[in-house]
């Protein structure tokens, strides 16, 4: 039997310690709704460690989610948090950031939400270089609705609405983000918890439209239906198939049902944000008559 410390044990002499994630959660809302083996919770650990290490002012950090399994992240984090409509987290976040520029705004949502119904918003926020960190937990499926084909579902994977296997070409999210003008583009998996934590921290310290894709297993609806094992089996696959390639050409990081998974930071560049561009431009047009918006 173990010497691990359990809640129901006598802890006399043993100090109470809190899980380091707890100060960042709405603890009364835990346990969460995610399935056994789902990777979303792991990404939340990494995110909270990153905001702790970055010593972010938590009162000035807001999180915006859309709809879906990952969309529930906003409700669990003890930050100003907004659970919006399906696909529209980015335009909500755009309004929030522009209305109150002192906020650091993070969009945290899933692949279906951000890239199917919300794809148009992603493209335009990246094009504008809106000052947002967009985190996409990509589990290749629509989990909340029962495992339908997603814009990221690899060719050949079976989903309830692709019962004979998917024949649609999936989107490569880093390629999309890069092409649309994102200033920071990275991909990790839930196997890479330390790297992901560092990546969150780095991205939080930058400005502009930043995008992090995180591959995460959906055991209930993606893995089971495709006989890919359990959550932990997929995370082991991430470990085995991942190839670190910082600065990789995003044209060459597409994902298949099997095959290598290129991870790392693909894009890191500087561009003025939308707000900086607006302020600089109006400063030139109006001269002294213009007061910079948002200080």
């Amino acid at each position, binding site marked *: 039997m173990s010497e691990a410390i359990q809640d129901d044990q006598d802890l006399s002499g043993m100090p109470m310690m809190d899980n380091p994630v707890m100060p960042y959660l709405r603890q009364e809302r835990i346990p969460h709704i995610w399935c056994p083996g789902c990777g979303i919770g792991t990404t939340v650990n990494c995110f909270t460690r990153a905001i702790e290490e970055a010593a972010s002012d938590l009162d000035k950090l*807001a999180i915006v989610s859309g709809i879906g399994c990952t969309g529930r992240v906003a*409700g669990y984090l003890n930050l100003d948090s907004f*659970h919006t409509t399906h696909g529209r987290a980015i335009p*909500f976040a755009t*309004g929030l950031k522009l209305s109150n520029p002192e906020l650091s705004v993070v969009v945290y949502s899933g692949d279906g939400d951000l890239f199917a119904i919300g794809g148009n918003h992603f493209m*335009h926020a990246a094009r504008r270089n809106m000052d947002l960190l967009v985190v996409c937990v990509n589990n290749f499926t629509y989990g909340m609705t029962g495992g339908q084909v997603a814009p990221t579902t690899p060719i050949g994977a079976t989903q309830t609405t692709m019962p004979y296997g998917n024949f649609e070409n999936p989107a490569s999210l880093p390629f999309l983000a890069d092409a649309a003008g994102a200033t920071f583009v990275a991909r990790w998996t839930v196997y890479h918890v330390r790297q992901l934590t560092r990546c969150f921290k780095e991205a939080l310290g930058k400005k502009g439209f930043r995008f992090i894709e995180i591959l995460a297993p959906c055991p209930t609806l993606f893995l089971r239906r495709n006989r890919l094992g359990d959550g932990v089996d997929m995370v082991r696959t991430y470990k085995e198939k991942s190839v670190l390639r910082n600065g990789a050409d995003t044209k060459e990081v597409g994902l298949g049902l099997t095959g290598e998974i290129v991870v790392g930071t693909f894009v890191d560049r500087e561009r003025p944000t939308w707000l900086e561009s607006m302020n600089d431009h109006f400063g030139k047009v109006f001269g002294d008559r213009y007061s910079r918006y948002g200080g």
Partner: protein
Amino acid sequence: MTADPKGVLTGIHFLDGDHAACEGALAAGCRFVAGYPITPSTEVVERFAQRIPLVGGLFIQMEDELAASIAILGGAWGGKKVMTVTSGPGLSLMMEHLGLAYITETPCVFIDVQRGGPSTGLPTLPAQADMMQVKWGSHGDYEIIALSPNSPQECFDLTIRAFNLTEQWRVPVFLMMDEVVGHMTERVVIPEASAIEITERRWTAKAPGTYRPYDVGADRVPEMTKAGDGHRIHVTGLTHDERGWPCMTPKQQDKLIRRLSGKIRDNADALTDIREEGCEDADVVVVSYGITSRVASAAVLRARAAGLKVGHARLVVTWPFPAARIAALASKCKAMVVPELNLGQMVHEVRLAVNGRIPVLLVDHAGGTVHDPQVILDRIQEAAR
């Protein structure tokens, strides 16, 4: 409190309704507009984009109306007074965020400059055929407030009122313009800022830890905060409890939806604004709103000249529908005539209020132009028989 002078273009102007509505928004303290171009509403945001850099605020043209209508909700939770502007096809896309604004009690103003529909319909030609869509277009039970101006001056005045009402009640407020009101140019008097009454947001004074975003008092309207003030709020489109946390039980659904509806339904009388003229001893009362009220006025004058006892009741507030007042009018007259630029929308509300006691005659019109006053006059004469 009174208006911030920075946004108030005091003076006597010659403006169209779209521009006047923009000036109303600026005077009301609106400092964040997200829009998407659509005829015949675009002039509102064009003027806003031109004026806002030196007033101090921000305009962004979003990628579609879905984005515009939720960017303003983000803007409101960032602390600004917000608005978006559209016409029929854009309004259809905005229904999703009408629902989100309502259930999250986010103060916001929607301007709908109505054109003929459905679908792309009649760009740049008038209609009043969105009246039911704004009331019923989102899924679920909800209430809104809608104001119907009939002149550029009212576009200015009622836009200010729309902002005040959305702050007071925390429901989406619609300014239901139409193409003619939007594009007609008339004298618009903009008073001194000190003469414009402004309703401030109901900011909470509670300290973090004690404030809950959906606690309410007697009027059932919660106090508000904004992101960044330390309250760590959660705002969700899911059915939620007083903390703002998801709570998806039949009991909480009942409690929340009845509270939200009750705010408006139980205050419908206080919100009523009907301009009545000659209704006291009228045999026939014409019930109208928006641009049609001006055509109806011409018909009423001609009817009176012909010796008929005709009153005119113009609805300035179209939603919540002033059922009690219409019922009271119906108890004194013999018939009602309802002209509108659609094939019958608000007439259903009139008939519900009248409840079969007197005939209610619709003067319908598929849109594209205003009524010929003679057509309304004919119906008045028919009603008087």
